[in-house]
């Protein structure tokens, strides 16, 4: 299990108070675990914690609704940074 995944789970649990399962492929918006404000705060956390820069265009459902899609976004941004 990746460290990034665990960090994201821990952050979401701390911020939202949600204590149930956080499956990597579960839709957290559909499940009402995250809302619009959480998304912005989560994006700020991802920027700071993983030292990547997110643009407004990155903050879309396709990138932030699932833990697996967040991880993919982090990987893409890291790859872009090093290329």
């Amino acid at each position, binding site marked *: 299990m990746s460290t990034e995944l665990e960090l994201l789970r821990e952050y979401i649990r701390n911020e939202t108070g949600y204590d149930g399962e956080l499956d990597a492929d579960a839709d957290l*918006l559909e499940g*009402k675990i995250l*809302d*619009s*404000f959480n*998304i*912005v705060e989560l*994006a*700020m956390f991802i920027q700071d914690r993983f030292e990547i*820069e*997110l*643009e*407004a265009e990155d*903050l*879309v*459902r396709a990138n*932030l*609704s699932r833990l697996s899609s967040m991880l993919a976004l982090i990987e893409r941004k890291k790859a872009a940074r090093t290329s």
Partner: protein
Amino acid sequence: MLQKFIGPFREFGLGVGLLYSIDRVLQGLSSGLRLYAYEIMVQPITDRPLLPARLRKRLEIREIKQGDPEVQLMPARPEIRESRFKQNAICLGAFQNGQFIGYIWFCFRAYDEDEVRCTFVLHPEPESVFDFDLYIFPEHRLGLAFVGIWSGANEFLSARGIKYTYSRLTRFNVASARAHEHLGWKQVGAAVFLQAWRVELMAATIFPYVHVSFTRNNRARLNLHPHALRRSGA
């Protein structure tokens, strides 16, 4: 069938679930019967940006005026849009990379509710507005739009000396309540309206507490004060 019955109670709790179920039954009986349950909220206007500068740079918030092309894109009936401008309401639109992504309306001094016969009177008058009909186009929901609109609205209103915005929330809209909690809103009161064809009965936690209306022009007037925010220290 059982799931349909217990669903509202599971989602809203016992009291609001019951109101929701009554409204559904009334609607099923006649189009002239409705029950509206509102929470009336107050929210502080802050000059602190809600979005970091980096995320704000492609987001523009500007006033939409009567006759602007964006008015035609709003999913409200033309007469409703006209009545808002007649009330001297202002509309702030949000644009991301130039694309219209959502909007919010504000009224000064008082707001004439269009679902029920009620006028919300705002206090203190020079520092208060009433916000309503925050709309985000579906393809932009759950992105930056909601926070962006409020970030821009705060900036616009605080520059005009506004400290409080009131709103009414239908008690059946749990998602909206949750999102607004981040903005520091507090409850001012609650009101229930029962519409039975031409008659409308109001019961509220705010003076005059009860009101019966038999005509369109006979409206309940609810005076709103920001005491709930002051008590919480906001």
